[in-house]
């Protein structure tokens, strides 16, 4: 792998150039009026709108970011705890895991109205929505990771007659970390979807900004909202990658898992 500036150019520059090309074509097509600007606003127009309405957009983005962090954070906390519980107590796994799988199969959009009834309008429902959709991947991946501890390492540990706690904390949890991170990465994307869907119905944040813009035919504002929400997802992936780099510094070959 190349390092430094040259490496960056070789690695990332093609993608940036391609994005620039696409944006230019888009801008050009709209200025030439091949596409009506009320259907597809030009990139520059979207940019202007975003700058103009920045305080509102920023507030909405922060509110959504808060809900996502809360939902994903709870998913990590509860998902990992449940995975440890299921791993330690197989009966609990057999009793509760099917319920979790069922939970996972219910489309979030169909229970969102129910969440509004339970939690009311605004952030609590949005948080619950982000939490529900992001719980399962973390739980399932962590559980798999715990169960797939290398038997050879287990035998090595067994030589020294470790306690159950030592096995969990020094062997099984570290073994599960790559799986856990994969689960969190999947969940991060889902949490963004869950939060936006929740906001469509319960209000607040980027979801309701997009929804309101739609009813006012402000396609440019819809685009601003879309861009901000994918920006949030990207930021999350970036943070998770940074954490992975630290946690998997002994196992760089597993980072792309």
């Amino acid at each position: 792998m190349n390092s430094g500036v040259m490496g960056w150019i070789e690695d990332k520059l093609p993608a940036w150039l391609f994005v620039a090309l696409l944006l230019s074509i888009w801008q050009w097509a709209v200025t030439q009026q091949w596409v009506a600007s009320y259907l597809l606003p030009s990139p520059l127009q979207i940019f202007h709108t975003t700058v103009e309405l920045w305080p509102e957009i920023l507030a909405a983005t922060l509110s959504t970011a808060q809900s996502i962090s809360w939902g994903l954070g709870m998913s990590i906390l509860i998902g990992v705890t449940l995975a440890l519980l299921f791993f330690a107590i197989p009966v609990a796994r057999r009793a509760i895991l099917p319920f979790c799988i069922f939970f996972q199969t219910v489309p979030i959009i169909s229970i969102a109205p129910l969440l509004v009834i339970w939690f009311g309008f605004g952030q609590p429902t949005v948080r619950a929505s982000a939490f529900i959709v992001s719980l399962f991947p973390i739980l399932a991946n962590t559980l798999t990771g715990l169960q797939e501890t290398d038997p050879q390492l287990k035998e090595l540990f067994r030589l020294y007659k470790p306690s159950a706690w030592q096995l969990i904390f020094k062997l099984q949890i570290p073994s599960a970390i790559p799986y856990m991170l994969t689960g969190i990465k999947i969940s991060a994307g889902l949490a963004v979807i869950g939060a936006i869907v929740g906001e469509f119905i319960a209000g607040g944040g980027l979801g309701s900004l997009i929804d309101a813009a739609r009813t006012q035919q402000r396609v440019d504002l819809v685009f601003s909202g879309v861009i901000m929400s994918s920006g949030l997802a990207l930021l999350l992936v970036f943070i998770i990658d940074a954490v992975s780099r630290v946690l998997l510094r002994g196992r760089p070959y597993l980072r792309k898992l």
Partner: protein
Amino acid sequence: MPSIEVQQLSKRFENSAHTIFSELSFTLAGDESLCLLGPSGCGKTTLLRLLMGLEQPSSGTIHVEPQQGIQMSYVFQEPRLVPWRTCLENVLLPLELTSQDSSSSRTRAVELLQQLGLAGRLKHFPHELSGGMQMRVALARALITQPRIVLLDEPFAALDERSRFRMQDILLELKTGMNLQYVFVTHSISEAVYLGDRILLMDNTGRAKDCRAITFGARNQALKLTPAFNAVVQTYAQLFGEMEHSMFESDVCEASV
């Protein structure tokens, strides 16, 4: 006073008609080191695992003085390092698991790694080391508990020849320096002759031949070029041949030299 006493030892795995070996007896004095020599599949590793207590005998007894456990340590066929721990942390693992971790143990681990030529690698992760270095870390990990007896299962088989010779000499140095006794599994006759005070020849039919005391003066790699050394190797090759011919058709004999 014998330090390892094996009497009438038989091993057959559950659900298997094949007896690995039966009624194996030998004793090993406190200052002797033993090489287990034989073709693949003859039960060398199984015998070693029995000595360590990783397997239970089908019948017969193993008496180890001092008692099995921390006084004894085991080196696997592969380094089996914990990937998320640095060299130093890997070496300290046995002490952590047996709650003997102290500030002085850290100093001792560092000294041990220095002695094995890994002074500059303390903070490296296993994936950053060559196979030979990983094996030396594994050896240091086995020695950190200050065992009286080290059991080694073909530890150098995967190394290139230079590293293998280097490791053999390191082992001989440690033997005198730390007053160690080892049981060493190998399928290389010359390695067995070089490292063993005694050699236990095993064949694929579950029989074993106990061969005594080869006394060479100083053991170093130059010894391997002497006629005396080669004569001993020849003798063992012949013995091997006899053991196999007495049971097998000549065309299925394994070439062991």
